[in-house]
């Protein structure tokens, strides 16, 4: 078991190093950041001085070593456009994205699993058919369209919810939270629905497919023959047996929720990392882009690691398999 855990952690570290390398290589081709930072009337000598200050004239190997060493300390340098430390910038934006992603994930899981279980248990019920039809829309409509539709209906027409921003926030230490105020929570509703809707339909459809599969299994038939209640058969035996693939997908999807909150943040002008990333792309702000990429990689790797460890908790057969390995 320890072997299994160590192997996963080793894999996670390897992935992060590779991502750092890719980030470094990739951003060498983005274009000359000096051109973005200074106006056309700046002299060549001034440009060279700036280049030296930023260390952009060193050899590639030196730059790479410096990048890796600094990345290890969560130091990604100074943003070219904001002239501020990237770490400070990201740290300031991170709570907004985190809270949005958390709300979206909870929405997707809390609604998606019960809906999937219901449609799996009663595939022919009217409600199930209605949901399956609706879920097609959820899967096929692009995120920005859902966001704009929601804004039109609930912000413009009904005026129930704010159309942009985080509302009032409360500062707790380094963390700026929107969970504690009424306007903060209200501002969270539409962005999290927009961000979580795709994942919700995905989770629901996956749980449904797995349930249909498991309901045919012998041990379900045997559980019925033992005279257990429908409730026990459906939830204690069937739903639990669908969880391994479902947890995998949920894990991956939470990763993509964080990574692809960019669109939702743009639609709702949500002051998170996604919005920061968009502006830094427009300005070839390489330190910010690199930091964002590393951030997303860390989140993905952490979630995957958690998922691998969750397997151990759910399925005893994996515990045995790793002990033998």
């Amino acid at each position, binding site marked *: 078991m320890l072997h299994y855990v160590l192997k996963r952690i080793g894999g996670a570290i390897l992935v992060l190093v590779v991502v750092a390398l890719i980030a470094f290589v990739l951003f060498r081709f983005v274009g000359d950041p000096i051109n973005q930072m200074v106006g056309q009337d700046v002299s060549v000598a001034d440009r060279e001085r700036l280049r030296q200050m930023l260390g952009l004239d060193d050899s590639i190997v030196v730059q790479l070593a410096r990048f890796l060493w600094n990345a290890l300390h969560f130091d990604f340098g100074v943003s070219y456009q904001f002239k501020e430390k990237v770490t400070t910038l990201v740290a300031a934006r991170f709570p907004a994205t985190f809270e949005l992603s958390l709300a979206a994930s909870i929405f997707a899981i809390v609604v998606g699993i019960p809906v999937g279980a219901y449609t799996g248990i009663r595939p022919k019920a009217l409600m199930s058919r209605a949901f399956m039809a609706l879920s097609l829309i959820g899967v096929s409509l692009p995120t920005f369209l859902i966001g704009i539709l929601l804004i039109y209906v609930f912000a413009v027409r009904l005026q129930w919810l704010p159309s942009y921003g985080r509302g009032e926030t409360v500062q707790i230490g380094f963390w700026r939270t929107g969970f504690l105020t009424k306007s903060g929570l209200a501002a969270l509703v539409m962005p999290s629905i927009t961000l979580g809707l795709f994942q919700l339909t995905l989770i629901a459809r996956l749980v449904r497919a797995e349930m249909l599969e498991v309901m045919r299994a012998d*041990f379900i038939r045997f559980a019925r023959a033992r*005279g257990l209640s429908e409730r026990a058969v459906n939830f204690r035996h069937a739903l639990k047996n669908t969880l391994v693939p479902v947890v995998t997908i949920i894990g991956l999807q939470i990763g993509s929720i964080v990574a692809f909150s960019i669109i939702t943040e743009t639609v709702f002008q949500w002051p998170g990392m996604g919005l920061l990333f968009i502006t830094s792309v427009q300005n070839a702000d390489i330190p910010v882009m690199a930091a964002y990429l590393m951030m997303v990689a860390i989140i993905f790797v952490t979630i995957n690691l958690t998922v691998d460890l969750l397997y151990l908790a759910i399925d005893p057969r994996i515990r045995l398999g790793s002990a033998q390995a």
Partner: protein
Amino acid sequence: MSEPLLEVDRLGVEFVTRHGDLRALDGVSFSMAQGEILGLVGESGAGKSLTGRAIIGLIDQPGRICGGTITFEGRRIDNLRSADLRKLRGKRIGTIFQDPLTSLDPLQRIGDQLVETIRAHLPLNAAQAREKAIALLGEVGLPAAADRMRAWPHEFSGGMRQRVVIALALACDPSLLIADEPTTALDVSVQAQIIALLRRLARAHNASVLLVTHDMGVIAEAADRVAVMYAGRVVEIGPVADVIARPWHPYSRGLMGSIPSLREEVDRLTQIPGAMPRIGARPEGCAYAPRCPKAEPRCRMAAPPMIEAGPRAAACIVEPAP
């Protein structure tokens, strides 16, 4: 003989499909006495497993009971509401399925599955149910039963798992045990142990067993009486020794002739020409007539009735009672 424990009378089961209703069981009748072991034998598709499932009301969709009655412990159970039927399953009627490897929930400890079943039917608290579960595991021959409670199904071999399945089936002292091919998925060396265990426990708990199998060897070893099924009907029923020694129905004779014997040396086993008609393609009259060496034109006119002769009965109008 006192009142039978189980009486199946002209049971019919059909599957509703787009191409019309297919009759899978067609007038299956037999009865079982308290404590008796009845073997139900036949080839694949004859309807033996389906008969067992119909009794506990667990026919796969889109199948349904379309005729006849099932009387258990003096009460009709074929028309019970599903909630009432559920109280019967596991409590009065225990079931053992073919594949012990897939019958247990892989994500639940052995002990939890036992306790869960016991508490679903009996008014015991957790500690009492646990005690009973340990006793059951000991009874089915698992050594160190108390330690095994925390084991996972995958940690057990097929034979051990089937013992656990038997413990689950017997958990609430049922009066009827339906054993659907209980040894088919097991190693030959383990088969005999499981059959002996089943027989011993059925006697000890005074439970009747409906032993569904395609293996005449298992029937010969374990059953008191045997019912031979062919194409959705019972074609012969009687005491095991009689049916094996002097089969009455031509199909039974063909079945017995295809069993290798240790006593006599035979070059080739006899085989029955042709195949059992598929469901939905069964002929008028006796379903066996197309393959039967003794068939006469009148066999094809109407389904032959069961003709009784003492403890035996067969659905053949040509062969005289042996």
